[in-house]
């Protein structure tokens, strides 16, 4: 594990000097915290009469969940749920950005061959590179989530909302699905990085993995998808299978000979 730790340390000391990486690690979480909490804050001054009109635009399944809540609290709940889905983007986008720069960067600087010539195993190298992307992504996502939960506790009009963001469905989503999405993002980054030479291209292609999440966000907003426990559990299972398949292909592609002779 010493070598894995050293790879992670080296990756961090290198990639975090890159402004684009730093931007995605710092700016995106800030955006995802500040915007919803700002809206929640601004909604505190609204009166139910103003909000009631808006309620008719919300998906029917959702309004059914608002039993016992005032119109304003229900709107806040709707907003919170939308942004919680967006929190799943962070564990995908951040590792994808880091992994793209770390792997394509090695290709650009011709440093992969000297690294592969050392007595490091392919698994150690791959693990180091993957964890260097996954750890900060999950760290930032979880930290942002807790800040968001804290902010919701302060700004939500109904205490039930603060409890809702800590419901099992969200805990599974943020900690389980988030982690699995991170792994998927890194695997896809590794595979794409083997075919391109520009970190920006690798990053752009790898972020396509976020499309299903954006579709989920849109689907939920328009009432086409019900983000319930069943969906979360099926998604977790599906991602587990997907991660296993992606990991297999990423490891196959990350062989010394393949890297040296085919990664151009």
């Amino acid at each position, binding site marked *: 594990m010493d070598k894995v730790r050293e790879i992670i340390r*080296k990756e961090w000391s290198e990639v975090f000097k890159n402004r684009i990486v730093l931007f995605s690690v710092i700016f995106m979480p800030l955006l995802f915290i500040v915007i919803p909490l700002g809206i929640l804050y601004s909604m505190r001054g609204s009166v139910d009469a103003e909000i009631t009109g808006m309620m008719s635009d919300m998906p029917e399944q959702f309004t059914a969940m608002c039993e016992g809540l005032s119109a304003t609290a229900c709107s806040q709940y709707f907003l919170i749920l939308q942004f919680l889905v967006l929190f799943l983007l962070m564990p995908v986008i951040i590792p994808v950005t880091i992994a793209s720069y770390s792997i394509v960067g090695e290709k650009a*600087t011709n*440093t992969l061959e*000297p*690294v592969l*010539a050392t007595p490091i195993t392919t698994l150690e190298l791959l693990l180091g590179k993957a964890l260097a992307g996954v750890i900060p992504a999950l760290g930032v996502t979880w930290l942002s989530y807790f800040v968001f939960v804290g902010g919701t506790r302060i700004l939500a009009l109904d205490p039930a909302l603060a409890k809702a963001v800590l419901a099992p469905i969200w805990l599974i989503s943020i900690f389980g699905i988030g982690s699995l999405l991170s792994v998927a993002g890194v695997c896809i980054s590794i595979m794409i990085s083997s075919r391109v030479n520009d970190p920006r291209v690798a990053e752009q292609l790898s972020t396509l993995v976020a499309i299903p999440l954006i579709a989920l966000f849109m689907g939920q907003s328009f009432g086409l998808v019900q983000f319930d426990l069943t969906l979360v559990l099926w998604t977790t299972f599906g991602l587990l299978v997907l991660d296993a398949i992606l990991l297999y292909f990423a490891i196959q592609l990350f062989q010394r000979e393949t890297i040296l002779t085919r990664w151009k």
Partner: protein
Amino acid sequence: MNNDIIIETKELSKSFGENLAVDRLSLEIPAGEVFGLLGPNGAGKTTTIRMLSALIAPTSGEAWVAGYQVGEEDYQIRKSVGILTETPGMYNQLSAERNLSFFAKLYEVEDIPGQVERYLRMLGLWERRHEAVGTFSKGMRQKLAIARALLHEPKVLYLDEPTSGLDPEASKIVREFIIDLRQQGRTIIICTHNLAEADRLCDRIAVFRSSLLALDSPTNLRQQLFGRRVVFHLVEAQEKFAQAISQYDFVKQTELIDNKLVVTLNEPDQQNPFLVKTLVEHGAEIRFVGEVRRSLEDVYLTLVNTQKENNHG
């Protein structure tokens, strides 16, 4: 495997699809030798080094490095060899010291700060150890890459184009460092296009183009291909002098060029006295006697062109 032999290959081959990069290469390299791998671009030099560094697997054949078999004991091989790759990739954002300490960790070096300091000082980079490698000149980067290859005190050192792209001053520093390493008794394998450098540094060379064309010391190869050529600088060269010495069986060829008589033979040290005596007896006035040294480039081009002709013929 003989104890003194540190690298041995038997019928080692490597193909990439249809392309045969290395064809049945058989070599024995004793410990402490500086060995040159010469050949045109695409001849398979880098592929051979990569196989012997356990970076890529041979398609067929066997090889042992430092007593470990390629393909079976790759971890031990990687611990036993150091490699200067053709392009000395370094992490530009990191300092020279950080670059080396990172690789030292991967090579499982025990005294990392000590070894890093030792090689940074040895290669004159200690004062600039905190600077980002991105600010270094090509020569400094090359020296740093050599330091990286030596951090774990490898038994075998592979240098792929060690002076490629360097200015004459930096090339000289690198060459002198290689000579120092040779004096320490390290086994060094050099891949190079710089034939003068190979001539100066290598105990033996292998010329190959996928398959082995020749393997010997530069001096022996010259002699095998061209014999040794002695030049007699005369006051006045005459045809009769050439005829007079042609009587000796050991004279392979004579040639008159201006006032010089060029004679090809095998053992000039023993045969020259007879020639001098004969020439003087026939009235030749000899200004001085010297040896025409064929360059390694002549050897190389003759071998490579002969193979090309054979392939086309």
